[in-house]
């Protein structure tokens, strides 16, 4: 039985994918590089204003999922606040979601603490309500970078901001 060239090449593609795969975060790394490339402004460093840990017991028999252990953080800058919620998604997994007040579309990047944005590894978009989520955030000490999505050259452009490190 002869395998066609196309099938053989498809198998070759797969074997390289298996044995020398692109890093899983290659696209996010590239997107983060592109995001910083556009910016010549400084990031405003937000401060932590509140931290609420609600990891006490779980509700059962209600409509809420059983795993609702949550840490809520609030960071603030001069004109904006960002609320971050880290919840237990079960099986030891975490989920991070957040929103920006006042709401505006943003691009959010999550990266290791102390790192520069150029090396962040996860990205998400905040919608018009300012909400964003990272269903499987990287763990450990992280920082969140938020880049308002306004047109280039817009004089009302909101400067981008970054949170201090926090623990996921």
């Amino acid at each position, binding site marked *: 039985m*002869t395998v066609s*060239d196309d099938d053989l*090449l498809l198998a070759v593609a797969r*074997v*390289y994918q298996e*044995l*020398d795969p692109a890093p899983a975060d290659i696209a996010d790394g*590239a997107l983060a590089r592109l995001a910083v490339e556009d910016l010549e402004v400084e990031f405003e460093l937000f401060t932590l204003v509140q931290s609420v840990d609600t990891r006490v017991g779980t509700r059962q028999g209600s409509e809420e999922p059983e795993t609702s252990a949550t840490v809520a953080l609030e960071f603030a800058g001069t004109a904006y606040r960002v609320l971050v919620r880290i919840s237990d998604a079960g099986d030891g997994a975490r989920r991070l979601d957040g929103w920006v007040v006042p709401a505006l579309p943003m691009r959010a990047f999550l990266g290791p603490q102390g790192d520069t944005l150029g090396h962040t590894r996860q990205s998400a978009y905040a919608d018009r309500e300012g909400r964003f989520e990272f269903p499987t955030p990287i763990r450990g000490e992280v920082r969140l970078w938020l880049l308002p999505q306004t047109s280039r050259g817009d004089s009302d452009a909101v400067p981008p901001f970054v949170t201090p490190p926090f623990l996921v």
Partner: protein
Amino acid sequence: MAAHGASGGPTSSALYDAATDAFRRWRAGDEPALDDLVRIMSPVLWHVVRATGLDREAAEDVVQNTWLTLVRSADSVRDAQAITRWLCTSARREAWRVSKASSRTRPVEDEMIDARMPAQASPESEVVAQDESAQLWQALSRLPDRCQRLLRIVAWEPRPDYSSVADTLSMPVGSIGPTRRRCLDKLRLELAALG
């Protein structure tokens, strides 16, 4: 994420069409479409760049730089249908520049010795698939380096530009087609010898 969303593989027209469409949308002002393009094409660029012999770290830089080059000079891509070729060629050129500038190239197969076969517990069907992968890998590694590189490129790159491939492999452009043919034949022979 799968290496390529297209069921037909990386060189299928589905991937090519998705990339062309994303580029078109981006150029029409839809900013998030650039994300789509980056997600579709970055894994392809990875293999194209790795086929030049660059190490993993340098390859990742080259992929990122290729995207920067695109954003800075998107106007030079006159035809949306040429986007995959433009990206692959641009990535290859950058890889070539980097490998000339430093001697960061390492024969890919040396590095692969460290590479692990997928280790997760798997159902029997996957064990069979892994055996097949191992066999194909073994057959590939018996081919001359140039064959390995060429096959990796033509396996991953949608509609490659042969003149740019020829530059990378230091071969006359006219010999790419016949060499591809010979390399596939050799691979079949090696597979038969192993089977």
